[in-house]
């Protein structure tokens, strides 16, 4: 077992849990969106840690491809969430 | 030579870490933004050293992207948005 692999893997678990906690507990919608992004980053770190196979062997490319597309989807989902939040805010102001 | 690159990468990591303390301490939002700038520059340096240390020339491209986009956050932070006409 590689030292780096479990160090980064554990950190990924911690980051994911921190993000989940933030997403559940924050009152502000914007901060919930940030928290979900943090949670996603934790999952990405987990996957990249799983792909890592030490300094000599090349890493597994499949999780890299997953994370790469995940990053792009995460940013567009964030944009959609922010647009929803903006609309919600505008509707509330009309009331 | 490998030891030197490793030591230098650690030095830059320490520099990034000190910048992180300023991001956490603030006090003003400008201070935090400035420290984020330092974290970016340190990140560029670390990536350059890692590209030699791990024999990954593509990390130079990553450093290039970080360098090119370094001003975007500051611009987004200080930019004045037009007011909605309503």
């Amino acid at each position: 077992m590689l030292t780096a692999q479990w160090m980064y893997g554990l950190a990924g678990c911690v980051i994911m849990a921190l993000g989940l906690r933030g997403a559940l507990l924050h009152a502000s919608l914007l901060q919930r969106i940030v928290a979900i992004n943090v949670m996603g980053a934790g999952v990405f770190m987990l996957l990249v840690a799983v792909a890592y196979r030490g300094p000599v062997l090349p890493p597994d490319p499949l999780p890299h491809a997953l994370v790469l597309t995940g990053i792009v989807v995460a940013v567009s989902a964030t944009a959609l969430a922010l647009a929803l939040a903006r609309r919600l805010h505008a509707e509330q102001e009309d009331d | 030579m490998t030891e030197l690159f490793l030591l230098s990468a650690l030095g830059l990591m320490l520099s990034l870490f000190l910048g992180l303390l300023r991001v956490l301490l603030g006090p003003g939002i400008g201070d935090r933004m400035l420290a984020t700038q330092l974290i970016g520059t340190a990140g560029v340096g670390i990536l350059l050293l890692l590209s030699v240390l791990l024999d990954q020339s593509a990390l130079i491209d990553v450093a290039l992207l970080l360098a090119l986009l370094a001003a975007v956050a500051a611009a987004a932070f200080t930019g004045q948005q037009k007011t909605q006409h309503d």
Partner: protein
Amino acid sequence: MINILSSILILSGVFFYLAGSIGLLRLPDLYSRLHALTKADNLGLGLLIAGVALHSQDLLMMLKLLLIWLAVLAASATSAHLIARQARRQETGS
């Protein structure tokens, strides 16, 4: 010979980085921090890049490294200007 020169350049680059971040931490106000930081990290990155370029001895790599340095120079000057302007605006505005 080239190895020694490149080591000296890289180590002095790291020294300026550390000086800059210590300045960022110890100096009392935003403007002096701004000043210390932009100088130190530009110089630090410049020396580091010179060292890495000397070590790589590959022309395309050197060109990319030069572009990185120029980009960081321009970006840090611009961001410093924007942050300082914002701080001034807030001081006079509110």
